[in-house]
């Protein structure tokens, strides 16, 4: 194992306060993510995967209450100043959302949204900014004509590519992808996954991938963590977990795929 992890989460507990009630979303999870590694989260809806991911970049909603610590490059995200946190986001940690069409601002062109991140984190301007934007669009497999398109005129796959371009614009050390392909059809999903794989090799960022789809995990991830009711019930390398699951929930989850004869 590498000496110091890029992201280290220890005893993370998150509860949401809804009116007078308090709902525990995470009940003390521990995991670490090393540089240049792909870790996948899986588990049923409401098991706390997304909450864990949001907590990793300090984006929990206002009614969330958090205990434990999230350390990114040795810095506790919940004790640094707001200014530092703004700098960390985008440059250190980037996020890709489930529904790309609603995650893009509908009244800004695709190019502007990517350029905004470039401007913010690399201080680029004018001609150089345009060049870099074009370069990023090329990298994610979009045409130059897409730069001036608005999100509603683009397909889901194209929007997700724009999100990925915006995420890569800050040259992040950690990319969190929250079900990046669950709204896309299989062919587009395949393309987007190939793109993520390619970019991960190129930019050498760590990837935290959240997915329901075990095929996606088998294809991309090195390690996997299975969530159930706010806890990580099983964690290990993909081969180890997929071949010989130990926790009953993990066994049940993997059995669903094996029945269909898909996945490894």
């Amino acid at each position, binding site marked *: 194992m590498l000496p110091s992890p890029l992201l280290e989460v220890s005893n993370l507990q998150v509860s949401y306060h809804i009116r007078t009630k308090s709902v525990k979303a995470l009940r003390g999870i521990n995991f670490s993510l090393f540089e240049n590694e792909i870790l996948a989260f899986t588990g049923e809806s409401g098991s706390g995967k997304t909450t864990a991911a949001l907590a990793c*970049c300090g*984006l929990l909603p*206002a009614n969330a209450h958090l205990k434990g610590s999230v350390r990114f490059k040795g810095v506790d995200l919940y004790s640094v100043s707001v200014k530092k946190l*703004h*700098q*960390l*986001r*985008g*440059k250190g*940690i*980037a*996020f890709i*959302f489930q*529904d790309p069409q*609603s*995650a*893009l*601002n*509908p*009244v*800004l062109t695709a190019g502007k949204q990517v350029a*905004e*991140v470039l401007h*913010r*984190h690399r201080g680029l301007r004018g001609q150089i900014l345009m060049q870099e934007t074009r370069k990023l669009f090329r990298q994610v497999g979009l045409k130059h004509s897409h730069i001036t398109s*608005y*999100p*509603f*005129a683009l397909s889901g796959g194209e929007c997700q590519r724009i*999100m990925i371009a*915006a*995420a890569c*614009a*800050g040259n992040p050390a950690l990319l969190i992808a929250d079900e990046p392909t669950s709204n896309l059809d299989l062919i587009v999903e395949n393309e987007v996954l190939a793109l993520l794989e390619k970019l991960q090799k190129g930019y050498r960022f760590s990837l935290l991938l959240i997915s329901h789809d075990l095929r996606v995990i088998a294809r991309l991830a090195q390690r996997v963590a299975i969530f159930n009711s706010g806890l990580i019930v099983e964690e290990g390398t993909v081969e180890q977990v997929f071949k010989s699951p130990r926790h009953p929930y993990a066994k049940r989850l993997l059995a669903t795929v094996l029945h269909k004869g898909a996945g490894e």
Partner: protein
Amino acid sequence: MPEYYKLKNRKILLGSLIILLVAIFAILLTPLSAYSYHEQNLEQANMRPSAEHWFGTDRLGRDLFTRVGYGTQTSLLVAIAAALIELTIGTIYGTLSGYLGGLVDEILMRAIDILFSIPYLLLAILLLVLLPPGKGTLILAIGFTGWPHMARIARILVIRLKTQDFFLAARCYGAGHLRLICGHMLPQMLKAIFSQLTLSIPAAIYSEAFLSFIGLGVPMPQASLGSLIQEGFTVFPLYPYQLFYPAFVLSLLLLGFTFIGDGLQSLYSRKLLKGEEYFAAQPPARSFQPTGFISYKN
């Protein structure tokens, strides 16, 4: 260009045409008149409309055509400036309230509730009594009492936008507060704000006319549509044309602006493009209803 932008809506076209005609009359034709708005000629008092005086003259022999044109200028200036003040204060106040949320939002919104509970005209009259009479005072009085509506609309829009994914995404790429508000929220609010503006302008024209009618308008010999209507009203049984012309122009203005406002509203509620769904779901702006307006404000 998509169909949406073609201004197919006849109401908007008709409204714009009416406003354009009135504006041409007030801004281009009035200065060409041979008379000035304050020039008295007692020998020609209360003349009926003729080739010499198109709209006739008033009891001091002033040319009514020039006075109505000049009054329209005053009314338009006061109304547009007041609506812009409403827009500025309301948008800033509402955006802050919605964006900050929590206790700040609660305090700011309760303050607006208190403002709403004070009769609007009372506040305007108080301001008019305290400050020297004139256009500036009218603008301030109408602008500073009309903004709470705009603030509420801006707040709702901000709260709606705040919970959307792209806002989270923008935060996630490290956008600062100012960038979030000005870069991501304002562009989406503009449509609703401007359609509200086209409804606050006729409301402001109406307030101005009402305040002038009860004698709190611009000082003599200046004229506004409200003060002209008031003058015409006193001699109505004898010289009805003196009431008719300013009242007619006032009605045209209100009709034109209300047409534009309504047209814009119905345009937004039409789902022509996928991206327009964002705007379609926005809250309907307060529509302008003169009768309800009077009873509410009194």
